[in-house]
């Protein structure tokens, strides 16, 4: 297996505030890496640094290619998908139009849309509805489908289960598993330990902008260790 995404010494600062310091990680094709952290730990800053939505220090390498000073749009075109915190679907465009725009990153857009709908067939019946009219859970599914329709090789997911009903949390976990099976490298950021457990993924624990530990989703004591980290 080759590493699809390698991050070395990533740092993010907002003016004088350091949100992320010296984070290094790597995700292989078809692998899920879950980064767990409490509110304000720096999870979103890490993903936005990787995808280029905020400027960062350190290096991000995608399939051996250093992304350097590429902006977010160029990184997306290179195959780095990012499902943003807060969904960020286009509210006045229909579900179909949202997917169509996402699929333009794909070498074969029509196939990209097909792949996304195969993953999330429930979107099909809402195809003509404006994204802004969907429920939060439906918007989350659309945001994931829009990213997948672009055929990314790496997918960054920012708290996709946030605010979802328990049934939808399970659905999201299943969808992430299916995305992994497509061979996509998934970097997932979460507050819920049970998501990492259900996926059985590798885990990094982020605290105040720094990685403070590694674990595995199948570890028996994962929950205790995370809670200790959250409370620290």
């Amino acid at each position, binding site marked *: 297996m080759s590493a699809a995404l390698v991050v070395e010494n990533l740092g993010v600062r907002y003016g004088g505030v350091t949100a992320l310091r010296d984070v290094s990680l790597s995700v292989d094709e078809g692998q899920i890496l879950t980064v767990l952290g409490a509110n304000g730990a720096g999870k979103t800053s890490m993903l936005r640094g990787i995808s280029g939505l905020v400027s960062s220090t350190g290096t991000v390498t995608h399939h051996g290619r250093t992304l350097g000073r590429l902006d*977010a749009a160029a990184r*997306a075109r290179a195959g780095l998908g990012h499902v*943003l915190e807060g969904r960020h679907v286009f509210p006045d465009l229909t579900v179909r139009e949202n997917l169509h725009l996402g699929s333009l990153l794909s070498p074969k857009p029509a196939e990209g849309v097909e792949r996304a709908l195969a993953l999330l067939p429930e979107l099909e019946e809402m195809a003509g509805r404006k994204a802004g009219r969907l429920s939060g859970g439906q918007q989350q599914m659309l945001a994931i489908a829009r990213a997948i329709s672009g055929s990314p090789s790496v997918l960054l997911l920012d708290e996709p289960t946030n605010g979802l009903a328990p049934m939808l949390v399970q659905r999201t976990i299943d969808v992430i598993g299916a995305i992994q099976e497509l061979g996509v490298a998934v970097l997932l950021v979460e507050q819920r330990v049970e998501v990492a457990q259900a996926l059985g993924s590798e885990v990094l624990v982020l605290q105040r902008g720094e990685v403070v530990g590694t674990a595995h989703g199948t570890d028996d004591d994962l929950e205790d260790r995370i809670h200790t980290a959250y409370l620290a």
Partner: protein
Amino acid sequence: MTDFINNVLIPGAAGGATAGLFALAFVVMYRTTGVLNFAHGQLVMLMPLGVLVVSDLWGLPVVLGLVVAVLVLAAVVLMEERVAIRPFVQSGHAMPWILSTLGFSVVLAELMAIPYRAQPVRFPWGISAKAHDLGGIQVSWAEIAIVVAFILLVAALTIFDRRTTTGLRLRAVAQDKDGAAAIGISPGAASRLSALIAGGIAAITGLLIVSTQLVSPELGLTFLFNGFVAAAVGGLDSLHGVIAGGFIVGIVGQTAATYMGGNYVQIAMFSVLLVVYLTRPHGLFGRASVRAV
């Protein structure tokens, strides 16, 4: 009734189309960048001035003048986008871009004053503003042209917006800049394209308003203000909203001019703006709040 048509409706519609054309350019730029371009008045005058310089001062064919003016306008618009607009996109503050676009307009006006030493000049190739009598109704070709051009331009841009992938991309940027960047739509490309479209609107506006305006590097603030009011009424991010916004501004302004006197036009405009601020801060069709400006 004929009096009302001649004194209010027709001039109101023509004035409304003018305000609407300014509003259209504002909206095109604002929705992808969050910037209102205070140099738009100069951009509007650049086209007729360019034609005058090439064809009147240099004595070359008018067609050549049009070509040169279009190229100069495109270059200026792209330069403005690069130095005075893009650096301030999404900065979250209005002050920097107010100063940068205003500064750009001052520089442009000074450069544009050079050929005719700041003297206003008549544009000899404009559409005739002479009134024709159609069964008691007085209307000129210039009035008809500006109203028709305005409506056609809004229709064309609306179709472009909804039916083409490029239009869809611009709408995506307008609705969610981070969401658009995350799927590979470059905000820089969107703002450049918006600037070129706004430049095209400026070119058409310029060639139409010189029927009744002298060409000068300073196109009064009233044009910008009425355009802004029209955009605010329709919704700062709504293309088709400028039809309603433009004609409301035109008719209200002309009603005030006819029944109260010319001094009351701007008071009426300002009242329209206040009513919008207080009752519908998103305008009739928009999402973006004018309070943000």
